[in-house]
């Protein structure tokens, strides 16, 4: 494999990782602050993608579509938090799993009821389409570079938000000691709704950004949800930094595993079975990575023990 191809694959891995970070950041915040396992996070990703596709269809504007995705996902998140989620904070994880699983069913089939059974159309704007020439003669899709940039900007913004702002202080305090922060007069239920809506908006943004280069269809959120869980578990639950590192690790492992393993296996076995076995191992790679990390660090890379 040539060096250029390898660099391109690394970029792909980073782009995939950054997208996973947008999902994982909300998930890890929600878990860190409220102690809630939210299986319906993938549904908010789907809501973002569908809202973007619908608005792009009506107006033709990608910028409006992105705004719609953020707004729709945040609104859906806030609504779900007010109606359902806030009754689950003092329950155990099992009840949370069942309730948010029920939400997946409602969101998925509800979306199908509204938008029909066929995938929707959402395209990248003309200004961002096509490849650009990177130093070293690498042709790379501009849009994917934009996704990387957006993801890193969001990551930076989140770090600032958590480290510097009043809300960030409240979030950190909430993670550390829930009773204390309520005693200090912070409106905890408003804070929770806000954090949930923020996490939902990030998922919606990811859905819209990715929806433009993938298929906008019912059920698109669940595979990403599982990967996002893998990410936050590797990174350590509650840690934004962990989510970023975990996301990049998972993105790179998945992309490079798929590209390199079949070739690697072909060096010591016959090509056809190397292909099959290599692909099989590649699709298991991130789960092997996760199990490996947890064996040595039972609370993830940056988790509180």
């Amino acid at each position, binding site marked *: 494999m040539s060096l250029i191809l390898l660099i391109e694959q690394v970029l792909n891995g980073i782009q995939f990782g950054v997208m996973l970070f947008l999902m994982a950041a909300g998930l890890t915040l929600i878990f860190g602050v409220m102690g809630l396992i939210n299986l319906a996070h993938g549904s908010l990703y789907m809501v973002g993608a569908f809202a973007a596709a619908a608005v792009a269809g009506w107006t033709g504007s990608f910028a409006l579509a992105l705004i719609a995705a953020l707004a729709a996902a945040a609104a859906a998140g806030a609504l779900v938090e007010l109606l359902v989620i806030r009754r689950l904070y003092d329950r155990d994880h099992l009840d949370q799993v069942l309730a948010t699983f029920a939400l997946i069913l409602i969101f998925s089939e509800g979306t199908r009821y509204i938008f029909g059974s066929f995938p929707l159309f959402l395209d990248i704007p003309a200004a961002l389409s096509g490849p650009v020439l990177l130093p070293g003669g690498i042709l790379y899709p501009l849009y994917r570079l934009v996704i990387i940039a957006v993801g890193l900007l969001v990551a930076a913004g989140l770090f600032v938000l958590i480290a510097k702002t009043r809300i960030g202080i409240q979030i950190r305090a909430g993670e550390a000691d829930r009773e204390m922060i309520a005693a200090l007069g912070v409106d905890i239920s408003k804070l929770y709704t806000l954090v949930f809506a923020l996490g939902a908006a990030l998922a919606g943004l990811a859905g819209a950004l990715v929806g433009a280069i993938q298929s906008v*269809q019912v059920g698109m959120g669940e595979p990403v949800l599982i990967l996002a869980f893998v990410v936050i578990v590797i990174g350590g639950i509650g840690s934004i930094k962990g989510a970023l590192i975990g996301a990049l690790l998972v993105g790179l492992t998945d992309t490079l595993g798929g590209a390199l393993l079949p070739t690697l296996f072909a060096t010591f076995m016959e090509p056809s079975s190397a292909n099959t076995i290599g692909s099989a191992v590649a699709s298991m790679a991130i789960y092997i990575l996760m199990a490996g990390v947890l064996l040595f660090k039972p609370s993830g890379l940056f988790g509180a023990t």
Partner: protein
Amino acid sequence: MKIKSLIAAVSIAALGSGAAWADAHSSKVKVGMITTLSGGGAGLGIDVRDGFMLAAKGNENLELVIEDDQRKPDIAVQLADKLIQSEKVDVLTGIIWSNLAMAVVPAATAQGKFYLSPNAGPSALAGKGCSPLYFNVAWQNDAFNEAAGAWANENGIKKVFLMAPNYPAGQDMIAGFKRTYKGDVVEEVYTKLGQTDYAAEIAQMRASDADTIYFFLPGGMGISFMKQYAGSGVDKAVMGPAFSFDQGILGAIGDAALGVKNTSHWSKDIDNEANKKFVADFQAEYGRLPSLYAAQGYDTALLLQSAMGKADVKDAAAFQAALEEADFASVRGKFAFAPNHHPIQDIFMREVVKEGDVVTNKVIGVASPDHQDVYGAECKM
């Protein structure tokens, strides 16, 4: 699930008041349709169902019970048990996916029920596992790919890059293409089933010296790949079987699909009376363009009704003979059954074009005339 069955039966009868199907000579048949109506793959099942119901409209002798398999093999098996044991249907049909067909068909035919496949043709059922009661009205899985390989030979395609998901249907499709294709296979890549990001594969395509990409990625996988491929700046020609370019999917890919060549046994512009009527009726009835799945559902109902006019379904041998005649005006034009009950039909090459604002397919030639699958030799019945 009585309510839904009732609705289906009533709607068929109500739609066709005064139609010509209430023919005294026609025998009564109860049909059980197991298809995917909820969840991710629902679009295909809905099209098969709608196509079937359109062709069966007004036929009071045809009672239809429709069940949703949710694309889960274990549910499909249980529904087949239910339709056979409780509903006592004579004929089963409707399954979309090869893996569900493999779970249901052998057991159904073993219990003496006819099965008409409106989609999916796993090689096992065309060869060693064939049955006198199993009729495939769609295609054997390899067919579109063998035709594409033959077309590639004649159209100067020297080096191809092959890609399919890593599961049996994907491996079948690639094997089918390689069976007829005589040029070089530069690379053969198997992706994860359900994969949504193809950046890594596209990078490999860019680096390879292939002149054409041939891929099989059904449903959402194909949509994702085509959109990403179009944005990548790689300008190799793209080919594939029709599954990634049917009408339900093209709308979601948009202009990114323009110019892609794909093989299919049906296209909405095939020039015959039956097809013109089908396309017009389907649009009038449902307000959308039909897909190849709708065409297959439609043909399945036409075939069934042609046999109902000739024989009683209770007389299995006679009904089987009536089905074998395939005496109906297929929307594909020519249609006949090979001895293994799989189609002999023309496979066309289509190109994705834009008609006004609608992205759709246009036939540009016949890729493989009177195509027949290769597994028939293994079929002993």
